């Protein structure tokens, strides 16, 4: 100890230790978020199969564990040990990178989501909302280059469709969130939730209903879910951009897709449904609900949104490619633009007290 104090002053050592602790906490947070996040992804697949199974008068997974609870792990082990086939004509390097980009772009977003009032890996990011939009858009690179690198026509068409679709819906999604930004006056996701808690409505879904609807539809399209699952429309393009992928590379796409879905559900929960908070009118009516930790509300909102995804998947047919584009450009973007104008006008009128 003495030798150490000889080298650096005690105050500097204190600062160093402080810094070390901060880094350690961040690493700990990352580990927790990753592990818990991946577990949620695993059980999101189980949840999907169960929900859709029961909607379709069947049981879903039942064999591995009680009511198939261990099925996700069985699937994971199977995918891990399968033979990894790489087409001889494929562009190998790009073929390797594709799924990694897709997965990474989806995973990074987990860092910005505030799961509870004081828990986010990157809490101080003032542009959280923009970062998520940016990284959600990054995922399309993974899709596109893996579609290209597979050197298969189905994969190629899937990649093309996907890039066109994600770019179009990115706009609608970004615009639908502008209303939220105007109302809360911030891009920090934690601040957005706090602003919602303080507002009259409790959650922004009430004043921003149009924005919420646009966001929901755009989120479906952004994560390539039915009825917008163009890139992987199995009846047309076999499996779209990941037709040629097998084994764990396929699993990476699969994981990335479900993480993206959870991210979108979290975004809906944070930006429109009040995140980890409950509206004041509910807590004043039922005060004991305040005792429940915020993460429970957050997860309930996320899973309600995910359930809605599954419900849609079990119900509706698939759109055609041109129809998807038409909805994106001719319906969603005008609606969200109108929403921005109205929100901004109201905000100006309210703040100026006219």
């Amino acid at each position, binding site marked *: 100890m003495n030798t150490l104090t000889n080298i650096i002053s005690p105050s500097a050592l204190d600062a160093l230790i402080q810094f070390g602790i901060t880094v350690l906490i961040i690493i700990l947070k990352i580990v927790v978020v990753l592990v818990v996040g991946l577990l949620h992804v695993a059980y999101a697949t189980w949840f999907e199969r169960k929900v*859709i199974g029961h*909607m*379709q*008068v*069947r049981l879903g997974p039942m064999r591995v564990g009680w009511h198939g609870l261990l099925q996700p792990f069985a699937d994971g082990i199977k995918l891990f040990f399968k033979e990894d086939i790489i087409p001889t004509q494929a562009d190998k390097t790009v073929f390797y990178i594709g799924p990694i980009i897709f997965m990474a772009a989806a995973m990074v977003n987990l860092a910005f989501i505030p799961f509870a009032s004081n828990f986010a890996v990157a809490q101080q990011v003032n542009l959280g909302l923009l970062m998520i939009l940016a990284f959600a858009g990054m995922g399309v690179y993974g899709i596109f280059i893996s579609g290209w690198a597979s050197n298969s*026509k*189905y994969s190629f*068409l899937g990649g093309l*469709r996907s890039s066109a679709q994600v770019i179009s819906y990115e706009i609608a999604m970004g615009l639908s969130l502008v209303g939220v930004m105007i109302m809360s006056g911030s891009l920090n996701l934690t601040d957005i939730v706090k602003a919602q808690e303080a507002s009259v409505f409790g959650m922004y879904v009430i004043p921003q209903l149009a924005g919420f609807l646009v966001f929901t539809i755009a989120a479906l399209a952004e994560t390539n879910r*039915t*009825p917008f*699952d163009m890139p992987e*429309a*199995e*009846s*047309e*393009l*076999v499996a779209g951009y990941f037709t040629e992928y097998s084994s764990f590379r396929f699993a990476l796409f699969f994981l990335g897709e479900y993480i993206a879905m959870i991210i979108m559900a979290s975004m809906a929960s944070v930006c429109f449904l009040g995140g980890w908070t409950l509206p004041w009118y509910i807590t004043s009516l039922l005060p004991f609900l305040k005792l429940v930790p915020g993460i429970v509300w957050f997860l309930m909102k996320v899973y309600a949104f995910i359930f809605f995804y599954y419900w849609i*998947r*079990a*119900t*509706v*047919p*698939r*759109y*055609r*490619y*041109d*129809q998807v584009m038409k909805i994106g450009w001719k319906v969603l973007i005008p609606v969200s633009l109108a929403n921005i104008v109205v929100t901004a006008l109201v905000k100006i009128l309210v703040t100026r007290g006219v």
Partner: protein
Amino acid sequence: MIEDVEKIFDTRELNVNMGPQHPATHGVLRLVLDIDGETIVKVTPHVGYLHRGIEKLGESLSYFQALPLTDRLDYVSAMSNNIGYCVAVEKLFGIEVPERAKYIRTIVGEMSRISNHLLWLATHALDIGAMTVFIYCFREREWILDLFEMICGARLTVTYPRVGGVRNDVPQEFLDSIWKFTDEFPSRILEYETLIDQNRIWLQRTVGIGVISAEEAVNWGMTGPTLRGSGVSYDIRKHMPYDAYDKVDFEVPIGTTGDTYDRYRCRMLEMRQSNNILRQLIEKLPAGPIMADAPKFLLQPKDMMMPITHPTKELAYVIEEKACKGCGMCLRACPAKAIFGEKKQPHVIKQDLCLQCGNCFVTCKFKALKLIPGGKGMTEEQLKELAAGPMPEEITKAAEYMVKHFEFVKKGPKVPEGELYVATEVPKGELGFYFVSDGSGKPFRMRLRSPSFVHAGVLPRLCKGHLVADVIANIGTIDIVLGECDR
């Protein structure tokens, strides 16, 4: 501008090979698509990946033996194919089927129509993306397949209708169960329709897709619901009734514009009509025989062939030593290898190995084989004694039947000479059988007119100018099965 770009870069259409392994081509159909972006420029269907030579096989099999081949045509509605074949062969033979058999056949034919349309709806909806309809349809189809299993033991390749009638009579539980089915089925159809009938996406995907006018549809040779969707009222069940269709009251639903949605509506209404037909038939089902009485043309039941009346009811084949020349023909014909003996020495049958198939009996040219009323417990001396003694009359008669039966099975019946085309309405359209008979027991030429083949040919016409996703909708709407298309 675009022309300039095309000139500089020498752009051409993307050539995509859809199939023969593809999740949505309903089997092994191969489509070569030339696409410009997402727009179809040209579709070329390639068929023949499932060719098994059923028509040629039919020429080397007798009229009864070719029946199981027809199961393998359209394996989704095997019952209807069987009926089509039987109706054609009966017309060739000129035999009349008993009323009860006609009714039973019509019942199973309509069940097969419903099950086919259910499978069609399931896959069509799945192709367009509606997953749940798929499972709902299979729930009801399962019921029908279970009923098929109840009457004949098979679920898919049934071979239940036979030339001259049906194989078994239907049990009461079958009729009860199918009655219950007809009670519940209309509400189930409504269940499917709540999911897709007025669904905005379904309408966008089907209305105005694959439009073909009535005139053009007729010119292309389309039949069945695929033609009726264009507004042409052509249904063989109605206009050239066979079996019991003239005794039931039903309508032929037709569409107006001839697009994918109209064809979908047609089939949905047809399922309801089939349900009505089933109810009427079950109510009217008469009693009586289930096989035609035509010993000249049809295989008779075994007990009619062998009227054995002697007390022990046991028979044995023995070889008469004096008559046997030791040629070895029977030795080779015996499937159980129960006959022993050197060449040019009288042969002996080991009774405990004998299966009593009668092969040796019919192969022997010297009439050395004898059918005697003896059993397995007897010694050789006793058997010889019996063989030497006078024969009871029944045994001689049975032996004569035996030879007749054998020849009938091997050579087939004596069929009138001539040519014949008979068409029936299978769920997919008009299934025609064309026979050229040269008077022998086997057809000189058997030819099939299968609706799937004709409809697969219309695909390029239906798909032109549409998008890639519409190709799938169009494959679904013409309802093809490649087993029937490639034969």
